[in-house]
């Protein structure tokens, strides 16, 4: 299929696997956050170590000792319902991981990973300029990702996503028996639970920042690129 665009500035930005994975992540992230807060509410205390201190104190965060910690609007479902929260959480955990593998496969096969996401020496040299450009709320629509884009997408894909999965699996008693090194590596099951919460917060932070950037950079162009693949670059790019 070949479509002729009168505008020469439209380029094919995202492959179909990247777009599918992106929306898979977007939907699953929202459901995982809502159901995750639901699960957290069942015992709204975070600890360091293997176990939870009841006879001693190893708590690092305690929210809402009476009633519920996170309010109804933030949880899925809205009422206190751990069983349903777990069903939703584990369903979308599979969606997130499937989307991650789909994306990785597509990015490796197409060369996207090496070509567009790998930060080059030039990227690192122009990092300062890129930060100043962003600080001035100027968002150039380039043919390739800028240094900040490469670093932030790289951090989500290769640090936050693997960490959220690893800390999640480190809470599974079945997984712990087969791979005791995983909770050990993460500082114990309760530390893994605390890290899971922190990484989720970091992902929420990325999500908010990402939406702000999309809105500031021109939401129609950005959304079209992530839906159809076609992205309009600046004149002279």
């Amino acid at each position: 299929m070949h479509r002729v665009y009168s505008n020469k500035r439209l380029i094919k930005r995202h492959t179909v696997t990247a777009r599918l994975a992106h929306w898979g992540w977007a939907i699953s992230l929202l459901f995982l956050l809502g159901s995750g807060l639901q699960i957290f509410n069942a015992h709204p205390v975070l600890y360091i170590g293997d176990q939870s201190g009841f006879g001693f104190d190893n708590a690092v965060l305690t929210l809402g000792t009476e009633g519920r910690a996170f309010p109804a609007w933030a949880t899925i479902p809205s009422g206190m319902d751990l069983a349903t929260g777990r069903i939703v959480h584990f369903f979308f955990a599979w969606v997130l991981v499937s989307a991650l593998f789909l994306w990785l496969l597509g990015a490796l096969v197409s060369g996207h990973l090496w070509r567009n996401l790998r930060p080059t020496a030039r990227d690192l040299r122009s990092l300062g300029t890129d930060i100043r450009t962003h600080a001035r709320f100027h968002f150039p629509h380039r043919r390739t990702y800028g240094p900040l884009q490469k670093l932030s997408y790289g951090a989500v894909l290769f640090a936050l996503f693997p960490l959220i999965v690893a800390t999640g699996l480190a809470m599974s008693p079945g997984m712990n028996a087969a791979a005791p090194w995983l909770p050990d590596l993460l500082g114990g099951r309760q530390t893994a639970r605390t890290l899971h919460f922190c990484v989720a917060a970091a992902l929420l932070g990325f999500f908010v920042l990402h939406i702000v950037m999309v809105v500031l950079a021109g939401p129609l162009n950005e959304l079209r690129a992530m839906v159809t693949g076609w992205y309009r670059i600046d004149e002279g790019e």
Partner: protein
Amino acid sequence: MCATKINRRAVLRLGGAGVVTATLGGCKAFDRLADPADPLRHYMERANRLTMAAQRGLLDREAMAQEFQWFDIRQPQRPNGVTDPQDLDYLAHVATGFSGYRLSVSGLVKRPQTLSLGDLEAMPTRRQITRHDCVEGWSCIAQWTGVPLSAVLDRAGLLPGANFVLIRCFDTIERSLSGAVKYYETIDMVDAMHPQTILAFGMNGSALPVPNGAPLRLRVERQLGYKMAKYIRAIEVVDSFAGVGGGRGGYWEDRGYAWYAGI
């Protein structure tokens, strides 16, 4: 240029309205999932079967749960759920120090058993310091002493079709219109025959206390706490749990929790 600005503003406004709607009413929109009859919920529940298939298929079925050291026991085992059953038959056993207690082992077995605590203590025992993970999210390390369930099942001899072990308990966990609901739970033979799956009568060096399930409780170390039934009255070996309670294999399972609690 002006047209773009208005467009952008309109989009921003629309987006803002969308976000507000989503946050105010968004999660209520998914409350249908809390309904046990909801078809979307049923679809999502299939992920639990996928998790079980993945763990059972990819991980070592014989793998042992982590065991800890005596100095890792830093507190009493936190009791949860029913901690002081008021059932009359149970209270009678408490009053006599469980001297008249008999564990019945029946169902698909060659030699049904009636075992006293003395009989169980005379069998080869196992002692393990493990971490108890509650579905709520907390963990607690304690030492458990008991008879491997496999030894009790071997003594009774399994008949063909012996697929699940059904644990029936003394404690009434819920009073509904249809009567008192006593705790019940099932596990399959992969966990029933696992060396760390024990019928525990001792905890942290002394007899199992009432809040933790005296005189006998189950330990299934590779699953969450709700699988580890307390106040065990009887064991039945069954081919299916379809006819037990709500048919999902346990008290909490019948209230929406997954039968496989390895995650």
